């Protein structure tokens, strides 16, 4: 009873499955947010207010949030089947994501050189697990974008379109998690 | 059969003397009452299910007469389904009321009077230390006066243990970094087994202690004795 193309049906399957997967991710991050809230502020220092710097957080956020915007550009290219726009969108998104990672790593590096490591106190442990897991997701996304650029040349367009769209969901989701991280981890202790 | 008989006799004897059902304190008695009440209600449920089960399996068992039959389609029955939804609610309510009551009672551990005895119970791998207010300490031996209220302050220095004297009162965990309390008034003298109920590593099995409940005068004497 299906009048749809095979690729459309199979894409709808995959979309369903991937959204369920994102639900799983959401539960994982929820658990980590709960963990962070339980252990912060810690009984002994250093306290989050002493460590966070608003400049780093601001720049990192600007980069990551705008990368969701540029990815929308690429999605627009997908609709109109303009390969150039797609590639340009992905490349800019990649650069913005890499910029975000620069600030993230900078923040970790600074904490660690100052002697604030995972085992220092429970706040820092929770911080590293939560923000670290998010950073791992962004890094994975960066690698995924490189793969996606190659796939654009090799795969039939419909399959590429599907892979691109799945990546979009992933990237927007990771972005949304960052916004919650901002609200839960950083903002209460920055002001 | 000859070999089986002693076993059966022993079974019968031990069955009559089950520790948690022969409590020596009021709190313990409340808990034993709850166990018996819930057991009674639940036996009713098991009986109903078993009777229906036996009737249906015997009556509708496949045999030469019905082998070829095709039973009628039966969607369900509103009346029956409402019946077995509401009756469990009633049964549960009978159980829930005393449960709530006794749970609140058991967690009220405030000392009733000035006279209340306070004992610090410190669990560690794999030992029990009981510290009295006058500084006296014992290991693996808890001595309590009869008919006097006791508040036990449960602490742990390493992992989680659980303080359990089946005949006296149900268990409560000892958690590192936190303090739990138990309030109990033993009402019979005697020696009762105490055990660690929460798995705590290598020596868990041997982490036992004796609880001795003795008359008040003897207790005062014992307490003032130098150890």
């Amino acid at each position, binding site marked *: *009873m299906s*009048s749809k193309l095979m690729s459309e049906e199979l894409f709808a399957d995959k979309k369903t499955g991937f959204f369920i997967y994102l639900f799983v991710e959401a539960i994982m991050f929820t658990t980590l947010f709960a963990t962070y809230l339980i252990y912060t502020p810690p009984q002994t220092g250093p306290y989050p207010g002493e460590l966070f710097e608003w400049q780093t957080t601001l720049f990192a956020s600007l980069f990551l949030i705008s990368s969701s915007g540029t990815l929308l550009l690429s999605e627009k290219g997908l609709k109109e089947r303009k390969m150039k726009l797609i590639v340009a969108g992905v490349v800019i998104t990649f650069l913005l994501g890499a910029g975000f990672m620069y600030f993230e790593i900078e923040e970790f590096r600074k904490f660690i050189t100052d002697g604030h490591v995972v085992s220092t106190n*429970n706040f820092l442990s929770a911080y590293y*697990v939560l923000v670290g897991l998010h950073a791992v997701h962004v890094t994975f996304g960066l690698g995924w974008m490189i793969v996606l650029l190659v796939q654009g040349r090799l795969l039939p367009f419909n399959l590429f379109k599907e892979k691109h769209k799945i990546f979009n969901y992933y990237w927007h989701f990771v972005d949304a998690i960052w916004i919650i991280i901002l609200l839960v981890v950083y903002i209460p202790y920055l002001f | 059969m000859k070999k089986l008989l002693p076993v059966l006799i022993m079974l019968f004897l031990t069955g009559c003397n089950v520790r948690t059902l022969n409590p020596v304190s009021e709190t313990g008695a409340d808990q034993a009452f709850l166990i018996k009440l*819930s057991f009674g209600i639940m036996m009713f449920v098991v009986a109903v299910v078993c009777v229906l089960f036996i009737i249906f399996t015997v009556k509708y068992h496949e045999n030469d007469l019905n082998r070829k039959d095709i039973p009628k389609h*039966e969607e369900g029955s509103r009346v029956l389904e409402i019946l077995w939804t509401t009756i469990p609610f009633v049964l549960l309510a009978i159980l829930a009321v005393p449960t709530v009551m006794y749970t609140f009672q058991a967690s009220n551990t405030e000392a009733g009077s000035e006279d209340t005895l306070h004992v610090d119970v410190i669990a560690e791998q794999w030992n029990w230390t009981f510290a009295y207010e006058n500084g006296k300490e014992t290991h693996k031996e808890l001595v309590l006066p009869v008919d006097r209220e006791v508040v036990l302050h449960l602490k742990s220095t390493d992992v*989680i243990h659980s303080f359990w004297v089946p005949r006296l009162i149900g268990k409560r965990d000892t958690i590192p970094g936190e303090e739990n309390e138990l309030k109990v008034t033993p009402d019979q003298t005697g020696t009762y*087994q105490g055990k660690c109920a929460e798995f705590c590593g290598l020596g868990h099995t041997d982490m036992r202690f004796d609880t001795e409940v003795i008359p008040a005068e003897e207790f005062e004497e014992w307490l003032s004795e130098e150890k």
Partner: protein
Amino acid sequence: MEFSFNGKSVFVPTDVIAGWLSVLIITPIVLYIIIKNRYWSTILDYTTTTNHRKIGTLYILFSMLFFLRAGVDALFMRTQLLTPENEFWVFQGEKYNELFTTHGTMMIFFVATPILIGLMNVAVPLQIGANDLAFPYLNLVGFYLFLTGGTIFFLAFFFNAAPNMGWTAYAPLSTDSYTPGPNNNFYIFGLQVSGLGTIFAAINMMATIIRLRAPGLTLSRMPLFPWATLITSFLILIAFPVLAIALLLLQFDRLYDATFFLGELGHPVYWQHLFWIFGHPEVYIIALPAFGIFSDIISNFSRKNVFGYTSMVISLTLIGLLALMVWVHHMFTVGLGAFSNTFFAITSMLIAVPTGIKVFNWLFTMRRGVISMKAPMMFALGFIPTFVMGGVTGVMLSSAAADMQFHDSYFVVAHLHYVIIGSTILAAFAAIYYWYPIMTGKILDDTLGKWHFWLFLIGFHLTFFLQHLAGLDGMPRRVYEYTQEDGVWSYNFISSIGAYLMAVSMLFFLWNIIKTHRSGAKAGDDPWDGRTLEWSVPSPPPEHPFERMPVIDRRDMFWWSKINNKPLPVAKNPRPSPIARRTFQPMFLAGSLFILSFGFIYGWVWVQILGGILSLSTFVIRAFSDERTEAYKREEEENEQ
């Protein structure tokens, strides 16, 4: 036993030596059987296929192997507890702790959960008229993750490093301050890897049931096993991610000196919350599919439709929802306060209502039916009273104040075995007898099946019934000995005898399988006079059983078509099926994760990096070898014409 090795003397316990010896003996025998019967092509076929039925069979096969291993652990425990102050072999103290940790963890994670996923794999697509699961490749990945996790955990014993902190891994005992060494790292990584596999399986099941049902098979016409699978998948999606994070935090405590769960600095009780937020739904994850299986089997062998179908579905859903808000009933003695304890006591009691509805619906399904006493039905009949007994002790346990006596005693041990064996294990056996024709095309011997059933059931009640009394008499769980004056000797003695009886019953099962493969009868199509769609296709079904896709307009449509002598109507233009393939990639991923896990377990950084690179490379390989490439190309070419 002491060994001299390079001038250093190494102590190896005799049970580990015996373990290695048995491997050295069994491996050549297995190899001989494989070579003699030329099983190579079959093995290659099963290990690289994405067909749901074959993957399901593999799940069941390996769960059964783990079942035997964990069962042997149980026999050692029961032998150690046979008499007061017994000293059996090496199983006192640490070795006994390793036994019950391995037994519990394996039975829950590598037997109960995967065997049900295996049965879902075999039956659910066929019951809903799907040619395969929505993501066949992911399905094979999920299986290999389960196998890898199970193997990692399985191997711990052979390196004399079996986990020893109980399957619940209560902190701070499970942190490296109190249990140093690799032992409990095996637990973390075994569970982490297989847990991911379980999540993938749940995603797959859910997407399949949402997207791939036959035309006309609305949710309200779906058989109850797929329904149970749907609810179970939902529970898995909530429970297992929480476990993953709990294990991650524990890993940070153990490997990187964090102090999440250490006393004084962290919150030991937080581990218990996380663990039981996972752990309680897990109980229903392994119980609900069993309910689904029994609903189908009881209806089938009573030749009658399920009584009160709607209330069956509603009660499944309610149990699923309530399962998410009762976890604190495992923590009544922690001291969380009277309010929280009573709240969770009441929610726990409420679960009895939908469960009771199901029990009575099963009973009334049989009423006015024709009950055919075949082996699968015997297991289903054994289930009803057994499970009810486990259920009522569950209600007793939910009474918070009384639970202070029950908690962590043998009463709890008895209760949990009554519900888990009573539902999951009996369901697994029932379903194996029931769906064996679908898995292999042959039918298991009914007489041997009945021997298996009766011995297992009698052995089971002998083993666990008296444990209730032992618990009430003050026997705590997880102890390796008791004294004469504890007065629990007779209970334990009879209990051990029961355990041996259960072991004997398993020999009948094994013999049944061997006999059936040697000389068993071909099942033929529809051997049980079935009601649901899986029996409308040949046994065993071909790769694409629903080439002629049926159109469904009622429940038990296949039964209806048989008694009315009307063939199933066929859909004109059914939706496309998922695309199958043959692939070694999941096997490669499994190997990579195996290396990665061992890197973490023993703290070898270079092995971690190697395993990490290999694991990530599977993503890249997969990205450029998608099985759909050809089909999509063809479609595009057709559209251009």
